[in-house]
């Protein structure tokens, strides 16, 4: 970016010539360098969603209980008893590839701020993670660092990480996916929005001093793919400070409790530029922003560096001048630096508020732009899209089922216990965690955020993604992903109330990627309508590619649910000696099911075919039945058949309980490994069997008695033996896979 450089500055900053032209139109003059850098960060893909916005509009966003939908820092649902739940999911994929520990840590930090910005106390994190294969050393290093980073930050900041996902696949080798979801609760009346109102009110910057962290990060890191050349972009890495964030949480919630805040906004992508312009334009006001007042960590920072820095652990609060002394006192108690950096100003006669960057109030004006233009005027692209040319051919080429001889090894190859990850996370803080990591979904006690009074009800959470399904068919795959989330909630007795999503895709300049994105949005919209669920927030992460190869489309769905009466723990993924095992949602009499998109097919590199059929109404019946059975309390175990199908579901119940399985009605390996939706295994004591089958019949849900939980071998047979392995061996394979690959303790902390 030196003047000697032949590249014009706007292009070096990632703005196209057309975009520059638009800026000139808006300002009626050439922008100066500070203004240009502000537009460049705000109009980046990361902040403006310029490639995805036109698609996201198709998602249903309203429904019962929705207090805040997409567009704010987090979605907010009314969950009764005067309590609201705020939820958001975000990605930190690219930073985590470059510096796994800090990338993941700052990802957790960022999503937490989105939650307490709304006035909510963060009570849970979830971390859906996707890495390259375990036999790749770099992927192991990334996985180890990412998990250490989430552990190091989440534990220390004092928010439990209660669940998530851990997936390994070749397509994430050069581009891991690190998504983080955060849930918070607040008294409904404390809800605050990112708004600056009231002429003369003050913008107070809270938290860390500003350094050169992540300068250009939003435009450079988030909006361009990278491969070998990534080293150049490295100085942009940010370091997280969970202790600062913890004090920031306490200070901000104390300010909100004392009603000292008119509006508040976290500083994430695009830093101060985003927070100042967003609060001003949301309030229909302008702001004079004193860049000289911003406390700095480094000498000699230029105004454009201060305005676009992504230094972590900062918030911008709008307060009245009268409340300022009390604001400063509370911040001092929590050892949080607080500095007046802005003043809210009136809009002009057209209602347009100016964001003026000044060198001291009343001093030189360094930048002067319509605040709202940084957001509303951001470019909107209708990028070309096209289905893959070989789609029909791929669909016609379905995977073959493993032979009988291959079945045992195929099953063993799919098993891994994620305790290696989850035991590094505090998942119990706040005494809410009734069902934590390892279950089909998380269940948290719902206590009033300020009085602590127990409501006797629970919140349930799950995150799900299935890149295999979505690679085969993004539209149906996404719908099936949401369906699976709903079924996961049913397994813990919960009903779904709201959806958030994180859309992880490749390069949007590839027409096939835009087609995947568009199909995914349609699939999600259709499924949300079918299940009457609103989407209340999300995030889009594009340019997930390396060396020109895009990742498989990976929408990750976060689903929030309610347990209406939380009096007992859900049965869990287990079973007891002597139980009968019943499959719900399938009686195994249908035609041979498709293995397309299944883990077992992927393991052999067979990525074609057509997904098994999905019937939303049949799914709803299964969900209703499972939820009722769980809440009635008669089951000794329950587990949905998801990744790895029925085989993996049964194996997981076996290793978790230490009890063998004897199933003798399996028609073949296809039925065992298909990932057809809407299938659930339940374990019941023999006395409960008849009642269970009757309940299934009454609900119109196909069911079949699979066999027994007994002995110390895992036996599956039908017309002949399919699988026979000792439970101890099954357990060792399952338990040791991650420790063996990732086991050496962390050196990245």
């Amino acid at each position, binding site marked *: 970016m030196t003047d000697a450089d032949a590249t014009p500055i706007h292009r070096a900053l990632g703005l196209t010539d057309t975009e520059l032209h638009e800026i000139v139109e808006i300002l009626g003059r050439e922008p100066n360098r500070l203004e240009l850098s502000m537009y460049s960060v705000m109009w980046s893909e990361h902040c403006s969603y310029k490639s995805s916005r036109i698609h996201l509009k198709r998602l249903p966003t309203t429904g019962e209980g929705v207090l805040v939908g997409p567009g704010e820092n987090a979605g907010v649902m009314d969950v009764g008893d005067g309590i609201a739940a705020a939820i958001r999911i975000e990605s930190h994929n690219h930073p985590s590839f470059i510096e796994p520990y800090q990338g993941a840590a700052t990802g957790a930090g960022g999503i937490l701020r989105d939650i307490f910005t709304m006035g909510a106390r963060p009570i849970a994190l979830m971390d859906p993670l996707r890495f390259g294969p375990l036999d790749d050393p770099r992927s192991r290093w990334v996985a180890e660092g990412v998990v250490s980073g989430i*552990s190091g930050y989440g*534990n220390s900041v004092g928010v439990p990480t209660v669940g998530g996902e851990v997936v390994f696949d070749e397509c994430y080798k050069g581009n891991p996916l690190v998504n983080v979801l955060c849930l918070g609760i607040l008294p409904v009346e404390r809800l605050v929005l990112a708004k600056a109102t009231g002429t003369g009110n003050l913008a107070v910057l809270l938290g860390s001093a500003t350094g050169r962290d992540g300068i250009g990060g939003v435009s450079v890191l988030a909006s361009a793919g990278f491969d070998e050349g990534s080293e150049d972009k490295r100085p942009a890495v940010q370091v997280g400070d969970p*202790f600062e964030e913890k004090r920031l949480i306490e200070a901000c919630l104390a300010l909100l409790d004392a009603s000292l805040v008119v509006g508040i906004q976290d500083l994430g992508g695009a830093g101060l530029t985003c927070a100042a312009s967003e609060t001003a334009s949301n309030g229909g006001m302008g702001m004079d922003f004193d860049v000289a007042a911003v406390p700095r960590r480094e000498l000699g920072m230029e105004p454009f560096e201060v305005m676009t820095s992504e230094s972590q652990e900062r918030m911008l609060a709008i307060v009245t001048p009268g409340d300022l002394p009390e604001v400063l006192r509370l911040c001092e108690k929590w050892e949080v630096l607080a500095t007046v950096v802005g003043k809210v100003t009136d809009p002009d006669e057209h209602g347009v508020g100016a964001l003026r960057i000044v060198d001291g109030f009343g001093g030189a004006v360094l930048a002067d732009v319509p605040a709202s233009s940084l957001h509303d005027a951001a470019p909107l692209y209708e990028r070309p899209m096209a289905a893959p040319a070989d789609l029909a051919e791929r669909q016609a080429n379905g995977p073959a089922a493993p032979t009988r001889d291959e079945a045992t090894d195929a099953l063993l190859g799919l098993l891994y216990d994620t305790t290696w990850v989850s035991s590094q996370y*505090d998942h119990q*803080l706040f*005494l809410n965690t009734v069902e934590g990591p390892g279950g089909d979904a998380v269940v948290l006690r719902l206590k009033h955020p300020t009085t*602590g009074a127990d409501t006797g009800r629970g919140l349930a959470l799950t995150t799900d993604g299935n890149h295999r399904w979505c690679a085969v068919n993004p539209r149906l795959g996404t719908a099936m992903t949401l369906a699976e989330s709903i079924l996961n909630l049913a397994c813990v007795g919960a009903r779904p109330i709201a959806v958030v999503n994180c859309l992880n895709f490749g390069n949007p300049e590839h027409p096939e990627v835009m087609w995947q994105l568009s199909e995914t949005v349609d699939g999600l919209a259709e499924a949300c309508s079918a299940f009457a669920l609103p989407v209340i927030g999300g995030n889009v992460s594009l340019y997930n590619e390396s060396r020109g190869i895009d990742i498989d489309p990976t929408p990750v769905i976060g689903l929030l649910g309610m347990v209406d009466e939380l009096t007992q723990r859900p049965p869990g993924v287990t079973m007891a000696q002597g139980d009968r095992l019943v499959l719900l949602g399938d009686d195994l009499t249908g035609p041979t099911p498709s293995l397309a998109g299944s883990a077992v097919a992927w393991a052999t590199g067979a990525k074609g075919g057509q997904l098994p059929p999905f019937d939303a109404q049949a799914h709803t019946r299964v969900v209703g039945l499972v939820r009722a059975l769980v809440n009635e309390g008669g089951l000794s175990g329950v587990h949905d058949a998801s990744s790895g199908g029925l085989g993996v579901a049964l194996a997981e119940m076996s290793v978790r309980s230490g009890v063998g399985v004897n199933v003798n009605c399996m028609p073949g390996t296809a039925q065992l490994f298909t990932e057809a939706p809407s299938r659930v295994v339940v374990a019941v004591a023999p006395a409960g069997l008849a009642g269970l089958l009757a309940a299934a019949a009454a609900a119109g849900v196909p069911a079949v008695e699979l066999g027994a939980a007994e002995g110390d071998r895992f036996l599956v047979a039908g017309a002949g033996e399919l699988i026979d392995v000792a439970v101890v061996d099954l357990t060792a394979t399952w338990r040791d896979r991650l420790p063996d690959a990732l086991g050496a303790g*962390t050196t990245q902390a």
Partner: protein
Amino acid sequence: MAARIGVVQFPGSNCELDVIEAVRLIGGDAEILWHGDAELQGVDAVVVPGGFAHGDYLRPGAIARFSPVMSAVVEFAGQGGPVVGICNGFQVLTEAGLLPGALQKNRGLKFLCAPAELRVDSTNSVLTSAATKGSVLRVPINHFEGNYTCSPETLAELRDGDRVVLRYVDNPNGSVDDIAGITNGGGNVVGLMPHPERAISALLGSADGLPLLRSLLDAASVSV
């Protein structure tokens, strides 16, 4: 009148509200003691809770022990007042010199949040008086630096004085002699890495922390 337990809050503490909830569940009163106050507000017992006081920067407990409240806690302990340090609180008490030894990084060099089985090896302390000697309690651990270390002389003193109150059945972190919790010579200051406040109901997975918390409440009630 119910006994009052003061729960110290440093910037970075995070288990203080959990301890308060647990104490109230068993009929005690509990309140926050802010680290910057040099006063204990007349409480009958003090808990230094888990978390990351001052971010655990430098070493867990290294900065926290200089807080004004700690002088008051040291004085209170010196007068025989019941003081319990849980997890980070244990680390703070060792840094403050109220308990011997130090807590290093776990042997496996990983943070560990997991259930643990603890054997009650001494009931001569304010945290174990109401528990049964030899009984095994299921109480979660949640720490990176829980690997108890001390000199051979200190270990001999702890053993000879019946001051190892809790031992791990299956040592998760490399602690010398499987130590999970120790007490001072008077039995009134106890430090332990596991979290009894997390084991207060079947709904949360275990209620085995209750005998420990009840012991503390008993000790606190004596002075009421």
